């Protein structure tokens, strides 16, 4: 008899703790998303309004200014370049991560050194890579370009994420499936295409997600290495050094919405492929 009330008290205490955590989590979400949300609302600021509340009417004035070509440099071009760059980085990240993941399934000489080199891409601040490569290029007289040098350092940054995803995938991978296919006389390439690839495809998509989104938003690594033409984050940074106007908020909102759209797209593709592999 004495156990029962104690249990219910324990249950009540647990519910209390849980709702406490829930409230904290809600506050945390406001902390994380609140500023972005305020920016989103302020992008619809009236024509006479400033960069902070109160709203002076609601208008699309700043969004229109954003689309007009003269305001923030070559915005459309910057967006196009950023997306193309992100797509190339995505392909390289997915490809390299898969190849490295395959290679790391078996121990090989120098695997430790390679592992730490890949991880170094995560650890070295972008400003150092930018500086090192930019000065080297200056010294030897090769001009930097967004599609060459910026691409190079972007992949260095995104590869560790994709690589870790593929490592996790192969850690849980059952090699006897491949062995079975091999026993039935399938060649190495057939085994990869018919057995391995379908099973690791969700991981490849996840690696691609890291490649695309991290490259699309990357600023520090691009800052000295984009060359003649800006990517979108560089344009955003440039417009921040001028007087800050609600146009910047419209730009920020547009860019964030695009990021969210891409994340949603990746998650959708991931879910579809993952369901199919089950």
């Amino acid at each position, binding site marked *: 008899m004495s156990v029962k009330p104690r249990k219910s008290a324990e249950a009540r205490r647990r519910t209390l703790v849980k709702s406490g955590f829930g409230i904290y989590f809600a506050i945390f979400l406001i902390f994380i998303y609140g500023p972005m949300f305020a920016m989103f609302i302020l992008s619809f600021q009236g024509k006479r309004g400033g960069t902070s509340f109160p709203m002076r009417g609601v208008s699309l004035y700043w969004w229109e200014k954003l689309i007009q070509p003269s305001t923030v440099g070559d915005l459309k071009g910057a967006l196009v370049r950023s997306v193309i760059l992100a797509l190339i980085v995505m392909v390289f990240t997915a490809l390299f991560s898969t190849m490295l993941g395959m290679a790391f399934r078996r121990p090989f000489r120098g695997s430790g050194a390679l592992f730490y080199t890949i991880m170094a891409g995560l650890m070295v601040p972008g400003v150092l890579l930018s500086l*090192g490569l930019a000065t080297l290029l200056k010294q030897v007289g090769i001009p930097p370009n967004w599609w060459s040098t910026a691409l190079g350092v972007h992949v260095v940054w995104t590869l560790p994420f994709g690589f870790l995803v593929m490592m996790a995938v192969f850690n849980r991978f059952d090699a*006897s499936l491949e062995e079975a296919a091999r026993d039935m006389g399938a060649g190495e390439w057939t085994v990869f295409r018919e057995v391995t690839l379908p099973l690791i495809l969700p991981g490849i998509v996840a690696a691609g997600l890291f490649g695309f989104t991290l490259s699309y938003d990357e600023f520090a690594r691009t800052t000295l290495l984009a060359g003649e033409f800006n990517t979108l984050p560089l344009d955003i940074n440039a417009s921040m050094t001028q007087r800050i106007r609600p146009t910047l908020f419209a730009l920020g909102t547009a860019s964030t919405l695009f990021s969210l759209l891409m994340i949603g797209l990746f998650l959708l593709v991931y879910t579809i492929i993952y369901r199919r592999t089950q």
Partner: protein
Amino acid sequence: MANHAIPQHPGLVGAVPARGFPWRGGDDRPGEAASGRDGPAAAGARAVRRAPGGHPGWLIAPATLWLFVFLLVPLASILVFSFFTSTGFGMAPEPTIKNYVDYFEVEGFFDPEARKFLTPSVFLSTLGTTFRFALTVMVLCLLVGYPIAYFLALQVQAFKWQLALFLLCMVPFWTSYLIRAVAWLPMLGRRGLLNRALVELGIVEKPVSFLLYSEFGYTMALVQLYVVLCIGPIFFSLAKIDRQVLEAARDMGANAFQIFREIILPLSLPGVAIGMIFIFVMLMGEFASAVVVYGGKISTVGTVILNYYTFANYPFAAVNALMLMIAMMIGVVIILRVVDIRKQL
């Protein structure tokens, strides 16, 4: 055609990833813990993995070459260029240690007349400031982020909710960091949202000015920008904890605090270390948000490096970069000394 072989293999049920994201094991739920990974099927898989096959050379060659060109060469050039001579509009390959002398030396450094015996050079003190900010923000991120990871990993029961809420926390990481920094401007100003909230709630009588372009506002913005980086790793190490162990501890009469201190905290330390290293190195290289949220009133090592690059004094920028790298390595080594993360990898 090879797929036909799958159902005929009786030993591999449960060895395929159980559910959810690939980085998430199926072994953190009681009942599933016994299946699969450490059973005979997994042992067989390990034996197969060791079997000889194609050489991995061509698999690693492209990425290795890429990392050599775009990671190792830039870092090596920083080291080399730090010994070059600045010519005012560029640099010449004449070896010198002048850059290092300039970096460390300052008037009064060894001057007995000076009040303080060791006044650090302006560059060293910038490094110190950057380090101090990094440390403060790291601690705050841990205090803010750990309960979130704990909540997600151990309090939320339904896997669907766990995944959804975790993704909600991770989304900002995949959006632009610059824009998230800009978004703080309407929050922090004298007429910003925070001030309005403070006045409306009657906490202060009139708007306070210590929010924007101040250490307080800057720190708060940095915590918001970087806290998600530690939630991920801590969440993963917490999610790996076998719930049966917690249940057993509870049955043996341990209270919640004891369970946390004796089981949960030690098991989550690798995740904490990875998260802290991640935040630390990012903060040490920080430069853009200092301009946006602090109005450029503070110099970080990052801004100093970029300034000297703009002045075309590349060797001196390189020295600053090198010192930043050394400070970072020391920090990372200290964190790794405290926590052994190899268990996590």
